[in-house]
């Protein structure tokens, strides 16, 4: 069965510290992987996506993610967190033809001043 697991419900980091949000997936076919961000009262915004090629993907707002097939993971990272990064982050997995698309349950990020 296809699924996406985000093991951390809440994470708090200090402003300027580094960040890593975990995502593990279970998918039968070659996965298309995504990270979205949802700020309060805002719609979901795509941060980055991975289809193939270089396993380290750069996204918007200084985020990057690394695809590790052996670990079925697609963790999101940022070297230095800003207060404006406080939001909820969702990992998602889909198939090429988008027949099925699954979101994880999300990780809420708090940023301490």
């Amino acid at each position: 069965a296809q699924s996406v697991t985000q093991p951390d419900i809440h994470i708090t980091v200090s402003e300027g510290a580094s960040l890593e949000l975990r995502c593990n997936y279970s998918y039968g076919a070659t996965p298309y992987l995504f990270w979205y961000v949802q700020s309060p009262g805002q719609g979901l915004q795509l941060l980055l996506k991975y289809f193939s090629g270089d396993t380290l993907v750069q996204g918007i707002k200084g985020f990057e993610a690394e695809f590790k097939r052996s670990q079925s993971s697609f963790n999101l990272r940022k070297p230095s967190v800003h207060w404006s990064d406080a939001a909820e982050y969702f990992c998602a997995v889909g198939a090429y033809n988008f027949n099925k698309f699954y979101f994880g349950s999300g990780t809420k990020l708090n940023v301490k001043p």
Partner: protein
Amino acid sequence: EAGVAQSPRYKIIEKRQSVAFWCNPISGHATLYWYQQILGQGPKLLIQFQNNGVVDDSQLPKDRFSAERLKGVDSTLKIQPAKLEDSAVYLCASSLERGSQETQYFGPGTRLLVL
């Protein structure tokens, strides 16, 4: 470029009542999606349209939920009759074409509370 528009933004109804949500996608986007996001969970894809045809509605509770996109532009999602467990945010998204390589653009959502 205008984004995905949804209305209403909030709705409170009693159980067994009916409710409808409206979505206007980005101009020119052929594919439209409806998601249900229950508090504390990620969005769940309910239905996907390509122009005015349904591509996938396997996770739509068809006994009470219906959706249409008659002219291939805007779309309506209806719940009739509503249950308490339908309380959620209903998100609409659109993309230029179908396929995971296409970026989905999300609207702000409609927050539904069923009492």
